[in-house]
């Protein structure tokens, strides 16, 4: 099952927020390269915390986190941006910038990574195409619907072709049809080799899609082995 070089590895990771209770306790798991998994659990179970640890937005109190072979505990502050360039993230509150066009929003990670405008243009259009928003690049994201904004956020997350894609409640307040559409989008990225981890409340959708499930319960991880696809038994 494991290639020995997983995309993500958590080794007995605990996280206690200052003055708070333990948000994660002794969490261990691996995500293989190209794997697709859901992260579920009640509100406050620690899903967002787990994703933030991979982004170095939070730091574990105990244990070690590895992303793409990098021990995040040993990363210097100056290396964190380069880690983040390997990870596409989608949040529920899509974090778009309303002072610039859809195009400029999506091009931002490319500018930062030092792509030429021509190269960036090609990639932005490819990303827009993959989320079905081609032709909207000149619009301001504020003019778009919630689902369209969410897709702009996804386009920005994948435009740099990161090997790892994280999503935190990406279908939070979308209707079931749109949710299914967006999940399909994520599965298409998996098909081209991206490792995908999606935190969601939408149990019905998760069960229907049938992928690996990581279940958090009060900070403890219970891996669900009973998957429709039958890959992980």
């Amino acid at each position: 099952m494991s290639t020995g070089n997983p995309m993500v590895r958590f080794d007995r990771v605990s996280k206690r927020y200052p003055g708070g209770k333990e948000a994660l306790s002794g969490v261990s798991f691996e995500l293989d390269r190209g794997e697709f998994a859901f992260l579920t659990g009640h509100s406050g179970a620690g899903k967002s915390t787990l994703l933030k640890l991979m982004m170095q937005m939070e730091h574990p109190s105990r244990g070690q986190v590895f992303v793409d072979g990098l021990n995040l505990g040993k990363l210097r502050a100056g290396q964190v941006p380069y880690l983040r360039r390997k990870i596409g993230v989608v949040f529920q509150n899509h974090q778009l910038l309303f002072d610039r066009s859809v195009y400029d929003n999506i091009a931002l990670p490319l500018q930062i990574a030092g792509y030429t405008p021509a190269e960036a243009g090609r990639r932005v259009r490819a990303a827009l195409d993959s989320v079905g928003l081609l032709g909207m690049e000149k619009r301001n994201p504020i003019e778009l619907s919630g689902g369209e904004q969410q897709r702009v956020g996804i386009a920005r997350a994948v435009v740099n072709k990161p090997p790892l894609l994280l999503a935190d409640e990406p279908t939070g307040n979308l209707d079931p049809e749109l949710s299914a559409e967006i999940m399909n989008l994520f599965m298409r990225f998996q098909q081209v080799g991206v490792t995908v981890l999606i935190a969601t409340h939408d149990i019905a959708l998760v069960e229907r899609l049938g992928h690996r499930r990581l279940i958090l319960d009060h900070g403890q991880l219970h891996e669900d082995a009973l998957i429709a696809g039958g890959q992980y038994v």
Partner: protein
Amino acid sequence: MSDNRQPKTAATGASLQSVDTRKQLSAWAANHQLVAVETLIRLLANPLGSLLTWMVIAIALTLPGALWMALDNMEQLSGRFQESGRITLYLLPGTEVEQAQQLERRIQTLDSVSSTELIDADMALDDFRANSGLQAALEFLPENPLPSVILVEPPLGVSQQQLSVLVGKLQNYQLVDSVQLDMAWVERLLAMLALAERLIWVLGLLLALAILLVVGNTIRLAIAARVDEIRVVKLVGGTNAWVRRPFLYTGLWYGMVGGLLAWLMLIICWLLLNGPVSNLADLYGSGFELKPLSATAALSLLLSAMLLGWLGAWWSVSRHLDQIEP
């Protein structure tokens, strides 16, 4: 050309740089250019918003600039006065005329001496008798109370330093009782100018601090207005240098515009004062003219303004930017 790389699914090791270095370097230069132009346009597009900061910088620079200009002119003026320096040597009482003449000849051979004149004690007494009207009283004196005097004229344009070397030498002659430099007041003036220069430096430093604070505060507000953008940029892998860059350039441009305004104000000061000053100089028969700020001085004013703007921005950015995390 782009190779539209697929996501790396194979083992990639622990390398974090993905785009090759040469590309990154030219992208870096291109980004500098872009940010420089963008921030300048952003500032110029909203001049009213930046006007206050520009004016504060300009005034804070004009004040020491004007004082410095005045000082420069005073030094020029004192240089002219120096041309009229003259040294009076009082010889010891009882010095023989031959001794005094011998001394005078030795002095004539010294550097920085253009002419000398000996007034021996008898001549001095004759003069005094003729001019003072105290003839009767002087008859009662047993001997001549006046010393012999040698007047020493240094050449035109001798420097202050050469002059004091000369005075030192003259003081060391055994026959010399005391040396009086008619330049003493010029020296005092120069000392005062040196003091004024020191004061201008102190004032300049205080005002430089004020510029740092003003630019720092302006940048702090700019950062606060762009917190969302900074969060997103950091989230998608923007380095601290990338995040800092637009603010540093903004500080630089604030300094530049402020410096240019200060330059303009100094030129206006000069235009306003030049006429009256040369009128005054004419009345005193002097060819004195108010010098404007030299090009070097103006350029260093501009450069230090830009440096101060940049430093103020740096100070503000390093205080506030690290606290903004996604």
